């Protein structure tokens, strides 16, 4: 030994078990931070690919751009790619309704348009069609065929099909073929059509600043600029309310992850120092100064950290790796550009930084405490632990048997240890409950396939006959077919229930003396059968969806979101119990709002005042007998193409077939991308929390080896010892559990109520989660003390007592 600090490695080697526990503790918290931050990093990269796929790879869209503006923007140094887009809107191609647009070829890739066959339209008279449309029975064209496109108010023109491009899920589901033509062609078909300029900035550009610069220099009004908010959100550049809410929620949760890391390490170090007071006193006796003791403890922390950090970082990287592997496995084509083994520099950096930082914080306080140890403590036998002077107790022994009373007493007497142990457990629970918010957000915020999502929808203006409905239901490959009727009705209610956003869109609204407005637009009234009402339960904000109750009390269900011009807004703010007056041929009918839904799984192309759901019985009373307007079909898994062909064969030209399968699959995919990470976060937190509890309990029991030996010498039996240790451990867990659940629920509530309000997520008391937490914590606690107790019992009592 050249230096007194050489004591550190000797000590660590001599107390292998204790050292290992400390290393595990640090490694766990490093793994937690590394995993969570790497996952976040990788998640954003995956999500960026997903968003680009779903919404396009561009940042800004400038409406009605002039040639001079385009010139100025294109010549900016920070612009990566820019091009023109003209939306010509509805038109018809060979008599079939279609949507026509024109796009500069250099932007095709950014908007996920890929030419499958032929070439991109360049000449004035060339167009390109989606693949499904080319193959559809109503259109049926080939490359180089001539088609006739006519838009309302303009003369029809002949075009040549120059190419075929990939299916766009939304167009396919809407059964409206997308037609792309050259810019020149668009100018010819509809001169003076509104031209948008699409801009993609280079990497690292501060987009909002660039946008402001463009606006200021070119004097472009705010409403002429549209942002690709989702893409801006995933690259952290959005100032949109929803994005900011998510950033804040995330920041709070990630802060708690850091705090959790510190707590876990601090707790272990504190236990380790507390149990060695006598050793430090001894060192002080033989001449160690306070600062030397402090250095010893700090050096010990450093030695442990250096060994723990690589383990933690590797564990964190592996978790991230598993998640990327899952995603790549499910969608190898979309995520082809993502490497399988992603090394997140920021995640690893965060892990290492927290490791070092927390160990220095976590060992600083115990080190100071160790330095304060008076040499006397080494020579006087007991007095290892400072105990608060308390009055005569005895109440516990009256309620519990002695060993349990002692266990509880042991935990309660050492306030600091109790606090740290409980905190360490509580913070894990808080994290778990906090991250659940993302699960709620994901379920509410992302439309995904639900039990009622159809694969194929048939629509017809004239209505679909009962007979066809029956024949469709009987097709072998059809799992389920369900019809829906709807009508447009004049619905009126208290004018105060209209939102400002709606009033702004429609302008002046006439209000009668009784406070009821005169409807400026129709509302969409949809009939639901019992099944559909049942399915809608997932989206119920409040109220009831019980068919009998709705029938009995003239109930109506208000849908809180409405899609207007492709944008989701809240047009009404109806509350339960509000009266809605609907005009029917037989006079005005009064209905009561008995339920509120977040959304419905379909949208209307026409702008409506609001959407209402009603039972089939009430629908018939209001709108009279009518055929189905929509039949939704769910297909069996096998031979879908064959079934679709069969269905097509039954339809006449008045019925449109909407194939939503690709769209559903893409929505599922988008959901999966997020779900893998959100559940990944929750799983990692749960796993690390469990390991942390096991490790802490292990440390706590290990530090009591000698004490337990004395108890056995005095006559405590093995079973009594088990109960005592378990009682102590349970005291820690229950206190931690209680604190964790209370604070966690409060956090969850605050996050949902204050931060995620715009997603209309309703906070409910997480009873199932709480029960799960209690069961899990108690189970883990019991399991975690078993092995250290076994180890102690396996040793002879004399060996244990003599260990100090």
């Amino acid at each position: 030994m050249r230096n007194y600090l050489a004591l550190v490695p000797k000590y660590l080697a001599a107390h292998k078990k204790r050292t290992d526990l400390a290393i595990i503790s640090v490694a766990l918290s490093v793994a937690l931070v590394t995993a969570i931050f790497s996952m976040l990093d990788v998640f954003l990269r995956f999500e960026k690919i997903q968003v680009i796929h779903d919404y396009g790879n561009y940042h800004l869209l400038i409406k009605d751009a002039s040639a001079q503006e385009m010139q100025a923007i294109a010549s900016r140094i920070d612009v990566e790619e820019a091009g023109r887009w003209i939306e010509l809107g509805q038109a018809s191609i060979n008599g079939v309704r279609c949507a026509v647009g024109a796009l500069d070829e250099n932007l095709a890739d950014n908007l996920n348009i890929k030419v499958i066959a032929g070439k991109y339209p360049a000449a004035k008279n060339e167009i390109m069609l989606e693949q499904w449309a080319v193959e559809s029975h109503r259109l049926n064209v080939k490359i180089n065929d001539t088609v006739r496109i006519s838009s309302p108010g303009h003369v029809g023109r002949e075009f040549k099909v120059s190419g075929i491009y990939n299916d766009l899920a939304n167009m396919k589901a809407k059964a409206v073929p997308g037609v792309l033509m050259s810019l020149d062609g668009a100018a010819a078909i509809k001169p003076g059509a509104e031209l948008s300029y699409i801009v993609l900035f280079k990497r690292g550009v501060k987009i909002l600043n660039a946008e402001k610069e463009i606006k200021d220099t070119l004097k472009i009004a705010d409403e002429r600029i549209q942002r690709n908010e989702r893409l801006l959100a995933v690259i952290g550049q959005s100032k949109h309310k929803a994005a900011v809410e998510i950033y804040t929620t995330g920041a709070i949760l990630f802060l708690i992850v850091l705090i959790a890391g510190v707590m876990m390490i601090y707790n272990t170090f504190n236990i380790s120092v507390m149990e060695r007071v006598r050793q430090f006193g001894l060192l002080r006796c033989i001449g160690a100064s306070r600062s030397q003791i402090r250095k010893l403890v700090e050096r010990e922390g450093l030695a442990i950290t250096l060994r723990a950090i690589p383990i933690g970082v590797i564990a964190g990287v592996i978790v991230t790796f598993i998640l990327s592997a899952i995603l790549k496995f499910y969608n190898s084509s979309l995520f082809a550009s993502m490497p399988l083994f992603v090394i997140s520099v920021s995640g690893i950096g965060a892990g290492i930084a927290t490791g070092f930082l927390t160990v220095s914080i976590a060992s600083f306080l115990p080190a100071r405490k160790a330095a304060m140890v008076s040499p006397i403590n080494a020579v006087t036998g007991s007095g290892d632990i400072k105990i608060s002077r308390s009055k005569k107790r005895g109440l516990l022994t009256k309620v519990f048997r002695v060993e349990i009373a002692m266990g509880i007493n042991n935990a309660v007497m050492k306030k600091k240890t109790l606090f740290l142990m409980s905190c360490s457990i509580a913070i894990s629970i808080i994290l778990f409950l906090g991250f659940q918010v993302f699960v709620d957000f994901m379920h509410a915020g992302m439309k995904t396939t639900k039990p009622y999502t159809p694969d194929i929808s048939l629509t017809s203006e004239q209505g679909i006959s009962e007979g066809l409905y029956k024949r469709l239901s009987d097709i072998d490959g059809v799992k389920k077919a369900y019809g829906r009727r709807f009508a447009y009705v004049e619905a009126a209610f208290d004018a105060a229930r209209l939102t400002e956003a709606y009033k702004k869109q429609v302008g002046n609204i006439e209000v009668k003396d009784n406070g009821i407005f005169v409807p400026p637009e129709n509302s969409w009234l949809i009939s639901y059968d019992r099944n559909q009402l049942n399915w809608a339960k997932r989206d119920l904000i409040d109220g009831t969806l019980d068919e009998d109750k709705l029938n009995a009390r003239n109930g109506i269900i208000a849908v809180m979101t409405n899609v207007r011009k492709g944008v989701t807004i809240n047009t009404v703010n109806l509350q339960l119990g509000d009266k809605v007056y609907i005009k029917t041929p037989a006079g005005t009918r009064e209905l009561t709002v008995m339920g509120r839904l977040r959304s419905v799984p379909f949208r209307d192309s026409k702008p409506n005042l609001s959407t209402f759901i009603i039972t089939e019985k009430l629908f018939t009373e209001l709108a009279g007998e009518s055929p189905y307007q929509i039949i939704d079909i769910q297909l069996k898994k096998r031979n879908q193409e064959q079934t679709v062909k069969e269905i097509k064969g039954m339809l006449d030209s008045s019925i449109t077939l909407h194939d939503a399968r690709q769209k559903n699959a893409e929505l599922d995919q988008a959901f999966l991308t997020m779900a893998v990470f959100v559940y990944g976060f929750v799983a990692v937190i749960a796993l690390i929390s469990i390991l942390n509890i096991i490790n802490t309990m292990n440390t706590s029991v290990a530090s009591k080896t000698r004490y337990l030996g004395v108890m056995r010498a005095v006559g405590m039996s093995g079973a009594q010892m088990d109960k005592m240790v378990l009682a102590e451990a349970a005291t820690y867990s229950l206190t931690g559990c209680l604190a964790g659940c209370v604070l966690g629920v409060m956090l969850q509530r605050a996050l949902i109520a204050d931060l995620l309000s715009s997603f209309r997520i309703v906070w409910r008391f997480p009873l199932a989660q709480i029960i799960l937490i209690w069961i899990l914590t108690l189970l883990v606690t019991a399991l975690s003390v078993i092995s250290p107790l076994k180890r102690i019992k396996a040793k002879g009592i004399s060996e244990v007592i003599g260990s100090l």
Partner: protein
Amino acid sequence: MEILRVESLSKTYGEGETRVVALRDVSFSISKGEFVLVVGPSGSGKTTLLNLIGALDTPTFGRVFIDGRDIFTMKEEELSVFRRRNIGFVFQAYNLVPELNVEENIVLPLLLDYKKPDRQYIDELLDLLGLSDRKHHLPNQLSGGQQQRVAIGRALASRPAIILADEPTGNLDSKNSREIVNLMKLSVEKYKQTLIMITHNPNFAALADRIFNVEDGIVTELGGKGK
């Protein structure tokens, strides 16, 4: 009347080159009420002997009978109960439970046995040990001598047949040492118990009924006032 019989007791630690023989074929018998002193140099095997008698450790070979029962044939649970009813320990390092006060430490073996402490007896004990006015103090508020008296109280609480003391005065000054030993002798006489005590203090020899010397794991009887 015989209370303790030791038959060919042997204990070895380790194996091969690190093998250490702590006790070699030890046999003796002790009658009820005797005060036995165990002396010998450090590392001779005194503590091993005491630990084996108290069943804190298991022998490599041999048997120990307390009150006619072979203690090493008992199962762990049975042994715990037997130990807390029949054997009292006094350690050199006191080993009190720091969270419990004086009185609680003393009655602990009774509580572990789910017995209601006999108030009169406990008060008598506290009185005898001179701890009556300190019964609500915690161990760290006591002096070394006082702590050891609490440990003696704990050993006596369940009125065990045998008290095993491993250098109970090792941490104390001569005045306190004498007091402690006198106290122990007084109490074993009063309650008709057997005391086996390890000590390095030659002054106590005069008080003992028998003296055993342990050297290199071999026990020999040196005599004493009983002989």
